[in-house]
């Protein structure tokens, strides 16, 4: 790796850090715009003005916003996420177990959707223009064009209502055997896999088709290489960068997907926690959940960009 690539990568990382700061700032200010005074909400309607003023003082609500933002940032660095308003538990404790649940859901979905999407995307590109290719393309455009909750409701209709294979709702606590576990995860994972794969298939197909139209692939064809050899030996290694990039970008759609999927299937993850927190206006909880999601999203996008830089032979 030359210093040129290293410079680009470092620059990309610096941009990611600046972006993260701006995003944290935006999240903090959006949540401090919440209507109503937090202190009087916490104390209820019967609170005396003195009590409200005292609590405001204790919670540093009278300080200028920038000071509160810096204090919040400092707390984050120490691993202190604050205390939930709704049930007075530390946010870190509330998030802990649910974070693991969400990561499990995201992990299983990734393991399933990446091989599936790559296979479909690459084969569709190889058989470009065939009935198979057109079916895959139309299906993936269809899935991208509809809301995630529609994919979820259709999955419930198909697997739970008509085929009666799976339960419509999942509850991780009731899982005792392996079969239970599979039945519980199946529906959310199927829905998420559909949503993520559709994006990945489109991007993978586009990347492979672009490589297939390059002069060196044409050269391989003219030399008499078989179709499989042409794709696997000549096109794929060069399309690898764009494909990995597509995978990382598609995985960032998981963030939007889990919010809907966890809500519709009542899955105890952080996305469900956040939607509930928005409903109860639980400020520190919203901030922390939003931060976790933005962090994950930024991480995936940065990784995608760095891979794109590293895989570009002209920069290497």
């Amino acid at each position, binding site marked *: 790796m030359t210093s040129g690539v290293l410079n680009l990568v470092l620059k990309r990382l610096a941009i990611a850090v*600046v*972006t993260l700061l*701006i*995003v944290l700032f*935006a*999240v903090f200010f*959006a*949540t401090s*715009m*919440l*209507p109503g005074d937090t202190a009087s909400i916490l104390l209820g309607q019967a609170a005396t003005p003195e009590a409200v003023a005292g609590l405001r003082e204790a919670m540093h609500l009278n300080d200028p916003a920038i000071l509160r933002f810096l204090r919040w940032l400092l707390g984050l660095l120490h691993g202190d996420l604050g205390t939930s308003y709704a049930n007075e538990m530390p946010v870190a404790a509330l998030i802990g177990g649910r974070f693991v649940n969400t990561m499990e859901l995201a992990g299983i979905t990734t393991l399933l959707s990446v091989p599936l999407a790559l296979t479909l995307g690459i084969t569709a590109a190889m058989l470009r223009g065939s009935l198979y290719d057109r079916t895959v393309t139309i299906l993936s*455009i*269809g899935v*991208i*064009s*509809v*809301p*995630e*909750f*529609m994919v979820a*409701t*259709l999955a*419930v*209709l198909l697997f*739970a*209502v*008509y085929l009666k294979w799976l339960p*419509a709702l999942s509850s991780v606590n009731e899982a005792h055997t392996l079969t239970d576990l599979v039945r519980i995860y199946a529906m959310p994972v199927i829905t998420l896999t559909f949503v993520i794969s559709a994006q990945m298939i489109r991007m993978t197909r586009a990347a492979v088709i672009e490589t297939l139209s390059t002069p060196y692939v044409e050269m391989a064809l003219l030399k008499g290489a078989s179709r499989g050899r042409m794709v696997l030996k000549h096109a794929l290694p060069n399309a690898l960068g764009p494909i990995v990039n597509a995978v990382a970008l598609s995985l*960032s759609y998981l*963030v*939007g997907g889990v*919010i*809907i999927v966890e*809500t*519709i299937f009542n899955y105890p993850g952080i996305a469900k926690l*956040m*939607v509930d927190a*928005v*409903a109860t*206006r639980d400020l520190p909880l*919203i901030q922390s959940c*939003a931060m976790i*999601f*933005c962090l994950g*999203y*930024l991480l995936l*996008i940065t990784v995608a960009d760095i891979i794109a830089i590293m895989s570009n032979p002209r920069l290497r």
Partner: protein
Amino acid sequence: MARVAASPRSFLGHSYNLVGVVAALVILAWTLIAIFAPAIIPHSIGDIVDDDYFGPMRQGLWLGSDYLGRDMLSRVLMGARYTVGISLAAVAIACFSGVVLGMVAAVTGGWLDTCLSRFLDAMNSIPSKLFGLVVVAAVGSSIPALILTLAVIYIPGAYRFARALAVNINTMDFMTVARVRGESTAYLIGSEILPNIIRPVLADFGLRFVFIVLLLSGLSFLGLGLQPPLADWGALVRENIGGLPFAAPAVIIPSLAIASLTISVNLLIDNLPQKIRDRDT
């Protein structure tokens, strides 16, 4: 229809194929429904007209009844008003602001361009649904607040697209000539840049409209979008989700309405003549 099927057809100097024409007709139909909904609904949207809830499709209640026994057809037709209206208003604001900012940034360059691009790129890296959740928690879900929220979320994308196009135009000779003539920034972006990027910008307008419809429906589905008694298509799915185990039409039809609109817009853009769709005009 047989006449239309003889594709590609020529209209206004562009050729259209069958898929594009059908998609355009579906979009036109939903637009007309959104405008004339109050005049054509068979029942008032609040009236309970069925003794049963989640009633099936039958004569008089063409799309069945919802979880309270209200006429589903009327509710879906009225829902079109909110879904199409709010999304259209939001996409108009988002594209107008984004495109103007993008052109100004490209023409002006320098620190304004750098700051604006950095800031909007950062906004772009907040997942849209998350952004929506946080902002809706902050400013509430009244219709004006929703329109502004959706618009703000999609300004960075429109900005990025328009700026990338405008930067290319900005290097052309006629831009240098116009600058030497001493034209103002307003003239440069209005008379020199805009006419050259307007067609890809309009295609982008359509795509962004789809994103906004999907996000609005998603927010309403989470119960954070349009609040009862108003109901857009996303909210209709949410309130009737209890009918899912019986495969009630009340939960399927609003989803299909969303899908018909978004897929049509996507197909229309995909089937536009290359001349309009291409990034470089």
